[in-house]
């Protein structure tokens, strides 16, 4: 391969190699017992994994992560389809882009900032509850009750990320041959029927992309639970990533890297097939 060609990829390759190094480093340290209690590192095989996996916090946080992702994927897809449907049937392109921007804008704001605002909105006296009480609905405990903490987190995530799903479904809808839709309209089909029978069945691609992205974004959510709980220690809001950070703050490094490696593996299982599908479909035509 010619020199001029190789130059193109050198920066990308170098930084990708650094990332690979980081991932491997994580894995290596996870096989040791390095922590505050063991400043001298020695290899212990899978022992760290066994001890970490058995802790309550591990299963708790992994469960939370999976719960968060599952909720976001399920609700994000459903709401995404609905919103995309609402947007699709608008006649004005301008209105469509305005409303689309409204549901996507949360992505333009830092999640840390979003968390701050929602922290206030969740205040049971002067937050959203003030309005709910005014309408006559009961005061919802949001972050002040352990059973509603996590659902509140899910709510904010849905607010932040549903826009992505809606975007992909909308893009998918707009790729469907318009003449088919027009024929259905002429046949008297209602908007719901068109959505249900024509648009959704042809949206398998959008479903795949939306699900993959929702899962990946939800899995890496950090600042939201971190700020909503004021730190990494609240186990009711602890996701896998937050738990890993907690282990780092208490200097249990090998356990932290063990959790980090587990997180990386779970994410890779989704990312790598997804990447290979992309490369086969879009790049190697």
């Amino acid at each position, binding site marked *: 391969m010619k020199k001029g*060609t190789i*130059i*193109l*990829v050198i*920066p*990308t*390759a170098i*930084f*990708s190699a*650094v*990332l690979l*190094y*980081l*991932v491997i480093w*994580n894995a290596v*340290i996870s096989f040791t017992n390095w922590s505050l209690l063991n400043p001298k590192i020695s290899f212990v095989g899978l022992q760290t994994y066994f001890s970490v996996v058995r802790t309550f916090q591990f299963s708790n946080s992994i469960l939370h992560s999976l719960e968060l992702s599952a909720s976001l994927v399920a609700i994000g897809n459903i709401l995404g389809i609905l919103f995309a449907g*609402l947007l699709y049937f*608008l006649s004005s392109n301008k209105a469509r*882009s305005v*409303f689309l*921007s409204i549901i*996507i*804008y*949360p992505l*333009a*704001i*830092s*999640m*840390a*900032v979003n968390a*701050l*605002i929602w922290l*206030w*909105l969740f*205040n049971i006296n*002067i937050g*959203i509850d*003030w309005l709910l009480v005014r309408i006559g609905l009961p005061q919802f405990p949001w972050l002040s009750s352990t059973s509603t903490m996590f659902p509140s987190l899910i709510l904010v995530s849905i607010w932040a990320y549903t826009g992505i799903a809606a*975007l992909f479904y909308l893009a998918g809808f707009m790729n469907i041959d318009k003449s088919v839709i027009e024929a259905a309209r002429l046949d008297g089909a209602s908007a719901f029927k068109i959505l249900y029978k024509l648009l959704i069945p042809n949206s398998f691609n959008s479903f795949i*992309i939306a699900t993959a992205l929702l899962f990946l974004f939800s*899995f*890496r959510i*950090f600042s939201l639970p971190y*700020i909503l709980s*004021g730190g990494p220690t609240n186990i009711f809001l602890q996701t896998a*990533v937050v738990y*890993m*950070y907690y282990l780092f703050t208490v200097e249990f490094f090998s356990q932290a*890297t063990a959790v*980090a490696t587990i*997180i*990386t593996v779970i*994410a*890779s299982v989704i*990312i790598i097939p*997804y*990447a290979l599908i*992309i490369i086969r479909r879009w*790049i*190697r035509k």
Partner: protein
Amino acid sequence: MRPVVKASLHYLALAIVSILWLIPVYAMIVNGFKSNLEVLSSPVLSPPTSLSLTAYITVFNALAKPLVNSLIVVIPTSFISAFLGAMGAYFFYTLSYSFSKLSSVISDVLFSLIALATFIPYQATLIPLTRLIVSMGILDTYIGIIFAMLIFYIPTGALLMSMFVSVIPRSLIEAAKVDGTGDLKIFMKIVFPLSMPGFISTLIFIIIQSWNNFFIPLILVTTPNMRLVSVAVQSYTGGYGTLYNDTFAAAMLASVIPLAIFIFLGRYFIRGLIALGGGGKGV
């Protein structure tokens, strides 16, 4: 159901969704203009009884340096990532029509790596990343933060630009090859100019992502002087005794730049999002 009723219901549904979605930004804007007393006592959702700029003034002084720090970090990071990533994307493009088995293996491996770098929960690389930055002696420096961000954003740029570069007609590249052009020159003179809209989308996407990045500046900066605005805002969290109207003003200041970019250049951001999902065509 009569069309007028249907249309009204349609718009009503959209209005409800819009209002729900806009509540947080409304709260952010409105409460920044309240006096501290009013923020503590009046509902978050009600508008201020009188406009007060004290919050903004205090916060602006405190956030001025973080804002500058963020600019110094984000601008080079995004331009470098988008450009170098574009080069990498063209490299993938050249691999896709090479004839050897080896090149398809290389492109699979490299592409999986850049996808991993784009989507991985980067918090998982916390420990080796800090260790690396410390050992390179660039903790608490602009270079350090930029370097760490580039690890994730150059591959992101490469992934996004792969979508945009793949729609360039193959015959143009072939004509250039027949004309005796090397790949680097093909990139500079043909591929890069022709993928400019995609480049701008990638650039906008990375600007917004890197500006809002919370975790990397969190762990790589220990001196208050070097803090970026995404982290500095965190010091205004609730917790008894801290100032409250400042929270909203701080949030607003931290978000002004990405929101402004989103409002004016939003379609590029959206195109970048769509490319992220693997479909650069027809947007």
